[in-house]
């Protein structure tokens, strides 16, 4: 990050919009497609992210599609193979299951199946995370994609990362699954999510990229490594402050890129702290955290002074009521108490 560049206060929704604007300005083959993303007088997608872009770039480049998730992703695959750089949106990440064949059997595999002769440079944006809408509107779907070879999977936790990673994702020659947590959008007014945690930070107004495949150490610490993504990064940071009061210094690593995964940095941190806690909003069983745990058990077992623990959503569908959602989504308290338990004698 060049510190001399001009910055502007942006929510994550604004930062994402800024990234798409710059990408479209700098490359005429970039276009957007999704439901309700460009309608005049409309929403700019489910979370205002594309608001105004159809005015700026026209409805030919900001395409409102029918409710046809399979065709949205399928068309993105076909467009990408024909020289364009589509940015497709699912209104909610949960709807990607309607398009799963196109993601898993097509987008992910075509480069390999062509023996490297075609590329599929598409971005699929998925709003994820619980927000009091129930079981079909709040799943964290990371690990369906991390398990699919050929897909890059990224999940920014800050406006700055969101902009730089989206620009990098659009310009990447591979299909990139781009997860956006609803409570991090920080939109304004009536379309703001009620439990939002992040409202705006200074983000450079110019064109910059954050290389995919990197993690970010958000807090240094010596006693326990906490690996988290998206909303959970923020909860882990809050937890780290509370742990610090108990004399436990946590190192918090934001795995903003799950594929490729910078396991080296995690491993080095674990070598230092000897303790690993993974925090994810995804379901426990088979979440991306299981893979981080398995990699650590393979590569750094002898450095560990305690079991590898995971704080995750339970293996239940997502309930709707706020009171139940609070039980479901990992809380700061659960992170603190689980981290503390690693130090139990």
């Amino acid at each position, binding site marked *: 990050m060049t510190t001399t560049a001009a910055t502007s206060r942006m929510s994550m929704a604004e930062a994402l919009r800024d990234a798409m604007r710059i990408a479209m300005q700098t490359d005429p083959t970039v276009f957007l497609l999704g439901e309700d993303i460009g309608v005049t007088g409309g*929403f700019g997608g489910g979370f205002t992210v594309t608001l105004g872009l159809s005015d700026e770039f026209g409805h030919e480049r900001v395409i409102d599609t029918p*409710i046809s998730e399979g065709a949205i992703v399928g068309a993105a695959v076909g467009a990408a193979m024909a020289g364009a750089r589509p940015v497709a949106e699912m209104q909610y990440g*949960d709807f990607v299951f309607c398009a799963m064949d196109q993601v898993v059997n097509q987008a992910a595999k075509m480069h390999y199946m062509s023996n490297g002769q075609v590329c599929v440079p598409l971005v699929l944006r998925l709003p994820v995370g619980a927000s009091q809408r129930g079981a*079909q509107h709040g799943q964290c779907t990371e690990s369906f994609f991390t398990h699919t070879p050929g897909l890059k999977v990224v999940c920014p936790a800050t406006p700055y990362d969101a902009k730089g990673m989206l620009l990098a994702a659009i310009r990447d020659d591979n299909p990139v699954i781009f997860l956006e947590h609803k409570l991090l959008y920080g939109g304004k007014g009536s379309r703001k999510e009620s439990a939002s945690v992040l409202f705006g930070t200074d983000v450079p107004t110019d064109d910059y990229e954050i290389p995919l495949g990197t993690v970010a150490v958000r807090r240094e610490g010596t006693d326990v490594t906490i690996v988290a993504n998206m909303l959970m990064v923020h909860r882990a940071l809050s937890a780290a402050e509370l742990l610090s009061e108990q004399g436990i210094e946590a190192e918090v690593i934001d795995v903003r890129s799950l594929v490729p995964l910078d396991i080296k940095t995690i491993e080095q941190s674990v070598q230092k702290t000897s303790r690993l806690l993974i925090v994810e909003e995804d379901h426990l069983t088979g979440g991306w955290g299981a893979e981080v745990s398995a990699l650590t058990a393979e590569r750094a077992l002898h450095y560990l002074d305690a079991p590898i623990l995971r704080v995750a959503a339970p293996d239940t569908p997502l309930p709707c*009521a706020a*009171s*139940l959602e609070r039980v479901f989504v990992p809380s700061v308290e659960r992170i603190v108490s689980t981290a503390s338990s690693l130090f139990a004698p």
Partner: protein
Amino acid sequence: MTIQETISTEWRLAAFRQMSLIRRYEEHLYLLFLQGLVPGTLHQCQGQEAVAVGICSTLRRDDLIYSTHRPVGHLIAKGASLKAITAEIWGKATGCVGGKGGQMHLADFSVGAMVSNAIVGANIPIATGSAMAFKLQGLDRVAVSFFGDGASNIGAFHEGLNLAAVQNAPVIFVCENNLYAASTRISSTTRITDIADRAQAYGMPGHSIDGMDVEAVYRSALEAVERARQGRGPTLLEYKTYRYRGHSRGDPCGYRGNDEHQSWIDRDPIERLRTRLVADLGVAVDRLATIEQECQREIEAAVEFALASPEPTAASCFEHVFA
């Protein structure tokens, strides 16, 4: 005797009551929402009451309905407990699904209202499967799938209708064409104007009908339901209608015009039925007003019940993952 002649004043009064209950319930919620008192999301059906009521009035209690993200009208018309659905919207333990569902996932299994589905179009093959199970078991029950104009563009519509047709399944597909899928006008997502025309692609009867006329809905539904019950297969029924309020909470409807809106309000199904009852059939204005007051009291009682109900226990989050 044509089917039309069988519509009685009693039927009309019952329809008036149900439509009024739906309308007033939705408006009551809307007012509470404006005061910030409704948790979660909100998809309302003001304007579309005639479809829900006309369809469900032709169904038996043991027939199944599969509703959508916009379920209140369908549920009320099928006879669901108002208290239980209200408590569900408020996320309470007494909610119809214990707070797990919320506004988009309402149900009342005692009257055949299955969990409403928030994946657009997903209930189409599901309803087809229920109908196939009825047929397999030699039952004369039918299943109904409700969905919108927008849903007719998703793969599940195509696969579900085709499978139902080829299986001769006792299912009725009810497309409420309110011209918009969220903010997107139907003309920008398909080149046809009548969704009912798609029935031909499956060798299935399809009819496009005025969804603002509860009697027209009733008559068309009766024919389709009887057809299904008699083992003569599915029907696609499209009803032209309009949603008066926004797509979901906080939608100011910037994508559509006031004139269009007004033209539909001018054909309001409740006012139309009121006129028919009062002007043509001599029902006293007061009688209708009494019905409306009764609805209002029922609604207030339901909201009171919901507000007074306890939150679900934390433990219930972990219950019912497996049977």
